[in-house]
């Protein structure tokens, strides 16, 4: 039953002429203290973004004190030689600034955002935090307690609980990657100011750090400003830490994290893939997008737009840790949630999508649309200073050249359908996927077992 429209129709318009756009090229330099600096002027971006990378990876944490890198990262904004914790927070907010810090496998990262007019003052505060953090006993103790309080909240969140289980399943118990990034209750409760200070003394120094500054820098003498602020940070020299090899067990299997009564099942289906230095990366980005990058990709076309099992399922590749020689690793995964009664049928369809892809490959039309989207959205995606700074910092952290992103766009445009298919199929082989399901085991175990996608085990959610 249709309804006649009264409007006047016109044919679909053709695109105008594309205007040139290139991923911004940063200028690289170094301060007298050895700190590497990347800068990039982005006219009109009034909020300046500063990223600082510290060569303090999670595998450098003492085994008994896992979580110490996280506590240190948080403690940077809890007082310096000039300000108490409360004063420091107040001074930062007086600049209209935000400062986030977090620890991940490659290192600790601080992200500052501040209006250009108050950059000088905020950079001074950031430099104080790095140069002379207070790490006061009482503040560290509070951060530790706070961190312990956060753990039950994270365990209760289905997607975070799934991620934790997948790491535990994939990596050997000896690997730092098998365990929670922010430590366990057992290790976090041991952390004190002395442990934080020791980690800082050992791993934080300007010679192995990098700062990235992006935004509208009109009228700002950045050299002078950096010299007075981050330039005043001192420390010994050190060799960069070698990156340990990553091994993983991706034997196809299913782990159900039991959450009785859950109305949905959280899916996280993953394995470990190549370092971002690998030649396959552009084709894998393209193939993964075709599989599950958006609502019109293969997975959602069936699971969402045909069957209505889900609000959305995504496939993605994410760098875990990259090494200069390309021996690092990434996580390749499919994630989403489906309603409990349809968990079996949804997984069945998901596997069918993967098998169909392996058998028939991608079409040229799919490849073309994916390239047009991935390359075409670049100017939108990198409109803000924060987006540019974050990608430049990722490149440094992953030991990639400063023009990596710009090159990646050219490589994507040059990648054919056959290469994209091959990359997607080898990224998601149906018999080498670890499936984590956070849901009601009593309802989903039997239907999932019937699919024959691997041995099914049930673990407790707690």
């Amino acid at each position, binding site marked *: 039953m249709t*309804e006649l*429209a009264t*409007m006047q*129709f*016109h044919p*679909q*318009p053709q*695109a*105008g*002429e594309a*205007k*040139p*756009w290139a991923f911004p090229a940063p200028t690289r330099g170094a301060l007298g203290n050895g700190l590497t600096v990347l800068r990039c002027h982005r006219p*009109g971006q*009034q909020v300046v973004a500063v990223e600082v990378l510290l060569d303090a990876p999670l595998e450098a944490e003492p085994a008994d004190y896992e979580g110490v890198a996280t506590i240190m990262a948080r403690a940077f904004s809890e007082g310096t030689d000039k300000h108490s*914790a*409360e004063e420091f927070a*107040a001074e930062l*907010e*007086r600049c*209209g600034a*935000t400062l986030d810090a977090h620890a991940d496998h490659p290192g600790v990262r601080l992200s500052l955002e501040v*209006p250009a007019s*108050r950059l000088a003052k905020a950079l001074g505060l950031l430099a104080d935090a790095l140069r002379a953090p207070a790490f006061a006993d009482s503040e560290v103790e509070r951060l530790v*307690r*706070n961190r312990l309080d956060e*753990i*039950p909240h994270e*365990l209760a969140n*289905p997607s*975070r609980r*799934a*991620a934790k289980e997948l*790491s535990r399943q994939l990596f050997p118990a000896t690997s730092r990657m098998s365990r*929670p990034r922010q*430590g*366990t209750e*057992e290790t976090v409760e041991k952390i004190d100011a002395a442990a934080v200070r020791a980690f800082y003394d050992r791993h934080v120094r300007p010679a192995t750090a990098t700062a990235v500054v992006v935004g509208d820098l009109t009228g700002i003498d950045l050299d002078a400003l950096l010299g007075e602020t981050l330039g005043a940070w001192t420390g010994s020299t050190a060799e960069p830490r070698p990156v340990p090899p990553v091994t993983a067990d991706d034997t196809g299997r299913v782990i159900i994290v039991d959450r009785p009564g859950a109305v949905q099942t959280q899916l996280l289906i993953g394995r470990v893939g190549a370092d971002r230095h690998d030649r396959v990366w552009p084709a894998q980005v393209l193939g993964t997008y075709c599989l599950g990058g*958006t*609502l*019109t990709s293969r997975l959602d*076309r069936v699971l*969402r*737009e045909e*069957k*209505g099992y889900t*609000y*959305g399922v*995504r496939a993605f590749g994410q760098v875990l840790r990259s090494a200069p020689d390309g021996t690092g690793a990434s*996580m390749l*995964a499919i*994630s989403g*949630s489906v*309603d409990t009664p349809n968990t079996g049928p949804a997984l069945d369809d998901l596997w069918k999508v993967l098998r169909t892809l392996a058998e028939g490959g991608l079409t040229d039309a799919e490849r073309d649309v994916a390239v*047009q*989207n991935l390359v075409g959205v670049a100017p*939108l995606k990198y*409109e*803000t200073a924060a987006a540019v700074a974050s990608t430049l910092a990722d490149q440094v952290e992953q030991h990639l050249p400063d023009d990596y992103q710009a090159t990646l766009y050219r490589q994507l445009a040059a990648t054919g359908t056959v290469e994209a298919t091959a990359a997607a199929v080898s990224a998601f082989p149906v018999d080498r996927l670890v499936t984590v399901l956070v849901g009601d085991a009593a309802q989903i175990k039997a239907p999932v077992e019937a699919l024959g996608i691997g041995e099914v085990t049930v673990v*407790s959610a707690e």
Partner: protein
Amino acid sequence: MPMAHTATDQAGTGGLTATEHRLANGLRVVLSEDHLTPVAAVCLWYDVGSRHEVKGRTGLAHLFEHLMFQGSGQVKGNGHFELVQGAGGSLNGTTSFERTNYFETMPAHQLELALWLEADRMGSLLAALDDESMENQRDVVKNERRQRYDNVPYGTAFEKLTALAYPEGHPYHHTPIGSMADLDAATLEDARAFFRTYYAPNNAVLSVVGDIDPEQTLAWVEKYFGSIASHDGKPAPRDGSLPDTIGEQLREVVEEEVPARALMAAYRLPHDGTRACDAADLALTVLGGGESSRLYNRLVRRDRTAVAAGFGLLRLAGAPSLGWLDVKTSGDVEVPVIEAAIDEELARFAEEGPTAEEMERAQAQLEREWLDRLGTVAGRADELCRFAVLFGDPQLALTAVQRVLEVTPEEVQEVAKARLRPDNRAVLVYEPVSPEAAEDADPPEDPEAEATVEAGDENEEAAK
């Protein structure tokens, strides 16, 4: 061209300007040029939200928003998504209490395509709307509800507190996601009637911002939207007016399987668009914004009774706004301890008002938030539509930050004194109940955040 050209040009934040136009069919158009990056944002606000829904049909505005992506006269199936993404653009739609918005951000040379697509569904959605897409999107939206509300701890807090803060029968008593029963009950005919009632050019504002040629853009807007008929069948929304204050403390205790006790509250505050609302925003920022706020310092730093504590402002134009308090307790701390500390801090603030330094901090924070909003073409397009739809004047978007900076400490104190009182709030208390197997001996470990999907938010319709 048959349009009343009412261009006003005045420089606002960072020298931004906007011009206003109106087509003969009533479609209001706002244009703002910015040639720094070769991108253009298209934003379309329809003056319809969940407040227009009737009893038994909650969630219909949002379900309908999903149907707007299921094809129209000249666009097949998922063509709207496919064409925009294939052109290197990004897109989405969201539904709130007061409006439904649709937006595309395009490489500048693909702007015309976005206008053609928006016009096609505004003029001819019903040519494509069928049972199949209705049934499918009903299931998708129910799964959206499960994922974002029903299957996460504290997920239904917003819904519960809203129902408490606005009385039964009030248009804001229910949230845009709607109830499962009402989503099940919605029919194809409901959707058709909804479109016929609310989706008209004279009930919408279109903004186009970025690297555009205004004359060419207006010509395209006229070409694609100009022939869509206006109509005036829209009923006035139910009256959302309420007394300035609630007059008593409303309270609900929820016993659920949640990881920790929590205290949440909603304070009744002045309507969006008023100077008093900006003053309330500053008061909430001083009290509970960021990590130097009074409540954060008191509960998280000094008393150490809370894991997190903060205030947010839900700005509303058609009903009183809500000041949103959220505190998760630390360890075994009981809710009355937290509540007493909060009441003490709020009373002290009402008594003293903000210090000069607190005002400076709060204004600097809100200024940065505005710079962030206006720093992208999509953010600017959305704000221009917001001020045009809710307050009749898009230019107000460009001067909003100045208005926040003009508020005085006395005005902040005044609104705090009048509104941030125990007898002007709805309180929701969470008391955890544990499942029987809670004494499991395994030490809990920390989950990780790595599996969040980058593309997720950008590419899905969402109910705000």
